[in-house]
């Protein structure tokens, strides 16, 4: 019975826990994605290409991925900064701020979308200020950008925070005693340590933003070729009972997301190898 290939774990309970994990993973993740791919397979690669290869769909895909990328980039910088501030500084209201970071997770996205629209619409408190200088936010790509930042921010902050907590002061002190300037320490010592976590946060934030529908739909304006996001095109196809076309666009998004996440993973592997811990 014992195959030399099977490496038995000395820890008890592996079989049961792995069984539960696999079952749950299959039910929750693998089956839906499998069903989507199966739908696509029955539709045929040629048909999928024909469905997707239209200017309006490319425009929407480009818009979704471009704005998601910029929103994730924004979150990468400011989410990391926020994590740093929350861990390193003590100030009144810190715990409240810390708890507030999770709000975008907890809030139904439709509520977030409506709240953001109310704030940034031309008659809202922020929107009216922007309108005074001729800047339209709600119902333009800026509005989408802001909504995507909102839903993605916690991912970066929450992945970077524990890493910042783990950085010991001695490390920075050692750097200083060896003659490094503050900026040099930050660039050569601290940022490399934060890099893998920050990239994970970036990837999560990007992935979330690409698929976001609920909050964006209220603030986007949804004008074809201008402010129409890819998930809305899927909904439109469903509205026409065109399940095949909806699956085709879904598969296109899945493939692009997969490619991007793969690249991010490769960068992570590279950065870990470069700075020494894998």
């Amino acid at each position, binding site marked *: 019975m014992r195959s030399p290939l099977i490496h038995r774990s000395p820890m008890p309970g592996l*079989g049961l826990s792995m069984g539960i994990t*696999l079952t749950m993973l299959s039910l929750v993740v693998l089956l839906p994605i499998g069903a989507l791919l199966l739908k696509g397979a029955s539709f045929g690669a040629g048909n999928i290409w024909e469905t997707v290869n239209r200017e309006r769909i490319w425009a929407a895909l480009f818009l979704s991925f471009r704005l998601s990328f910029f929103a994730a980039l924004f979150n990468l910088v400011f989410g990391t900064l926020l994590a740093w501030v929350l861990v390193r500084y003590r100030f009144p209201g810190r715990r409240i701020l810390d708890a507030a970071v999770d709000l975008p997770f907890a809030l139904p996205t439709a509520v977030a979308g409506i709240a953001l629209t109310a704030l940034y619409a031309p008659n809202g408190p922020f929107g009216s200020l922007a309108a005074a200088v001729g800047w339209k936010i*709600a119902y333009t790509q800026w509005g989408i950008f802001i909504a995507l930042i909102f839903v993605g921010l916690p991912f970066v902050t929450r992945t970077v925070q524990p890493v910042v907590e783990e950085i010991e002061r001695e490390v920075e002190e050692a750097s200083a005693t060896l003659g490094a300037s503050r900026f040099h320490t930050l660039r050569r010592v601290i940022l490399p340590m934060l890099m893998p976590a920050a990239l994970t946060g970036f990837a999560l934030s990007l992935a979330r933003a690409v698929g976001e529908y609920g909050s964006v739909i209220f603030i986007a304006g949804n004008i074809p070729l201008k402010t129409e996001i890819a998930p809305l095109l899927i909904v439109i196809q469903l509205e026409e009972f065109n399940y095949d076309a909806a699956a085709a666009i879904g598969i296109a998004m899945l493939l692009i997301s997969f490619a991007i996440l793969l690249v991010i993973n490769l960068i992570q592997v590279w950065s870990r190898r470069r700075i020494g*811990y894998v």
Partner: protein
Amino acid sequence: MFVTTPLAGTPTAQQPIAAARRLTFLSGHSTLRGTLSALALALIGLGAAPAPVHAETLLNVSYDPTRELYREFNEVFAKWWTDQGNEAPTIEASHGGSGAQARAVIDGLEAQVVTLALASDIDKIAEAGKLPADWQSKLPHNSSPYTSTIVFLVREGNPKGLKDWGDLVNEGVEVITPNPKTSGGARWNYLAAWAWAEKNGQDPQEFVGKLFKNVPVLDSGARGATTTFAQRGIGDVLLAWENEAYLALKELGEDQFDIVVPSVSVLAEPPVALVEGNIKNDEQRKLADGYLNFLYSPEGQALAYKHFYRAWDDSAANPEDVARFPELELVGIDHFGGWSKAQPEHFGDGGIFDQIYVPK
């Protein structure tokens, strides 16, 4: 040296990779047993879910703007039904976009009654085999107990002086309408504009194209568009269901908006139907039949008038509710060859509406 400090807090990105690596070694029976026991657990969980079959329940799957109508109608009907010597029924109503609601029923939502915005949505349910193809002939007036039309809601005093469809394509006029691709009501908006252009000697396709060029925001549903216009202050005119427009006046204040009735509009007939495939027994059929027929009774019709629908029988209605509807020329869907022709021609993939947005 310091860079090799192990970071316990490095997040979980590498864990799935490790799990996957371990997975490739696993083929032993312990995993199989684990999987089976987990599956068994899941099955027990599913099997334990109760499936109550109670005759006196009814689910009405409806579209968005009927929320207020059916809230009151369900109460009145339940009382009337009990007064007829029946057991008190449990009546539930679900509201959403008409197309999405139709899909939910096709995908298995157990609605005994559907009351949707477009006959084409109920046709889709019929195609899925849940009700007979000739459903629309089973009840009077093409199975539409009430009708509505499309009117303009403008800001108080009508500052841009919008009187008819022709004014909406003027430069600088912002028109708010939901997206005809996702909203049943918006299809009527589009068709009403089309009918006006035809009757006034304009090229309808060009006219509707110009109209939609004046739309700054395309919401996905009628309620969203009303919010954009009324709460966010976007646009000069909202193309709305007549009942939505009156409701907006009632809820948001008559001193903020005016209703403008154009010279030509559409006769929208939101149909109702009994979903044969979801009827469990005779008791439930009796209840569902009673429910739909009550919509046509004088009391039911009076309620429709009260909630700003143009109904058929005003014998029991409050005369005020009837008198507020002005006369105008109404064009039905037959004018466009019925939904089975109009839907693909205008709103299908690559149809006339899609061409509006194709850059030249």
